[in-house]
């Protein structure tokens, strides 16, 4: 009924939605959406390096994003600039360097639109394996650091005083964020990955009264966005990333109706 490439994109999208939901919740709770953006922008540099050295793309993106996160921590310690300025500096300079490098690599044909906004045709069988195995690992590790990460999100000192290790949880979470960007870049694209993390989560916030529920709604929202987005991408021949994100936005707008109801009930 459907072509193989479409089934592959769908399977990839489902895998990504399962991981993006829980990670996205922490991105929103910890106010890291701009940080996620910065890591995603640097992913383009990772792609170009992978191409020029004929290296695995996901691994390359993962390494570059982690390196950017480390550089950020160093810059925060050594300069007096506020975090958002440093994030902007890293995001745009790594994006720029990525694009400049692409300009030099004239012998390779890049689909820049595909890199920036995702390509439904780009997902191959190996990518599926990377997404599902990598995704399962990410979820497993997140499960292990869930308690210290959540506790330190609520109150850092409380978590530390009562014997949890917030610094380690934070470091591990940064690595997980780099990892999800690495596995989802082909389908969603560099510029829109953060949207995949935070828009279904924002929708979920409107529908939930506790963290677990919010994670589940974020996953459901992500899955719906992937289904609606990919089918419309196929139907209208639009890039996959923007179609998924646009679908997520529509779901978010619907979730606002629920908020309105709750507010009316309260009054």
């Amino acid at each position: 009924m459907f072509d193989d490439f479409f089934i592959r994109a769908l399977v990839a999208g489902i895998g990504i939605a399962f991981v993006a939901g829980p990670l996205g919740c922490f991105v929103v709770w910890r106010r890291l959406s701009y940080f996620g953006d910065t890591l995603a922008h640097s992913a383009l540099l990772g792609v170009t390096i992978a191409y020029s050295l004929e290296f695995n793309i996901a691994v390359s993106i993962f390494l570059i994003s982690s390196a950017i996160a480390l550089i950020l921590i160093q810059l925060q310690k050594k300069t007096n600039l506020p975090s958002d300025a440093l994030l902007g500096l890293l995001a745009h300079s790594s994006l720029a360097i990525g694009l400049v490098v692409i300009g030099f690599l004239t012998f390779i044909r890049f689909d820049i639109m595909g890199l920036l906004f995702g390509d439904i045709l780009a997902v191959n069988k190996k990518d599926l394996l990377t997404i599902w195995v990598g995704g399962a690992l990410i979820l497993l590790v997140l499960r292990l650091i869930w308690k210290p990460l959540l506790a330190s999100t609520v109150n850092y000192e409380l978590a530390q005083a009562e014997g949890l290790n917030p610094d380690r949880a934070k470091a591990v979470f940064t690595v997980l964020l780099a990892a999800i960007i690495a596995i989802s870049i082909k389908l969603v694209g560099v510029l829109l990955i953060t949207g995949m993390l935070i828009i279904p989560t924002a929708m979920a916030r409107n529908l939930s009264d506790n963290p677990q529920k919010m994670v589940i709604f974020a996953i459901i929202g992500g899955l719906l966005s992937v289904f609606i987005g990919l089918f419309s991408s196929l139907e209208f021949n639009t890039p996959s990333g923007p179609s998924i994100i646009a679908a997520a936005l529509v779901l978010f707008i619907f979730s606002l109706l629920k908020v309105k109801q709750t507010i009316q009930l309260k009054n």
Partner: protein
Amino acid sequence: MGNNILVKLNNVGFQQNQKWLVQGVSLQVEKGKIVTLIGPNGSGKSTTAKIALGLFKNIEGQVEKFTNNIGYVPQKISIDWTLPLRVRDFMLLTDNLTEDVIDEALSLTGVINLKDKSLGNLSGGEFQRVLLARAISKKPELLVLDEPVQGVDFTGEIALYELIKEISEKLNCGILLISHDLHTVMSATDHVVCLNGHVCCSGSPKEVAKNSEYKALFGEQAAQTLSIYEHKHDHVHTNDGDIKKN
């Protein structure tokens, strides 16, 4: 005797941005004892508590901690609205507790009726009771309470201080308490440390009340707080508005 000590500060100090927040503090908290830190704003009470908890890395002096089972009520805690959290979720924040244990702790501080409420919808006093319930629920060996009854109504305040004393006896846990209410402090404490950037004076409540530095800090009137006005009611008001006979 030695193994009754839960935490011991030996001449500790902490500076931030080249300014000493607190210096030369020595104290120890033992099992079943309440040690109270008093002092004016900015005198280093919270800093001292945080040093005892091991929250600072570069401190002067030594901290010896003999337990890892700690309950903490911080002075300030703000719950971000982006994170939806009910009271029951908050109770499970740092430990895995059974429903029974959660219910028991919430009943003790009189907020069992709020168990399924969102944290963001609680009043200041209610939230403070939940904080206290969370800290005692894990049956800690050491409780560090930084102004645990701020924002609680007057009768509730007295009841909670009584509860704190009861807990220290029942669980045989040591308590490091920070408080502004000289009245209650002086009647329910084993040991008082009066801080003002350093230890002004310390000792039993009676000794401290007689100390001239204490009088200088808090005024002559404060010295007379030992004789607090005591009276008994034949009933109590529970939190949901019911009246319970004693």
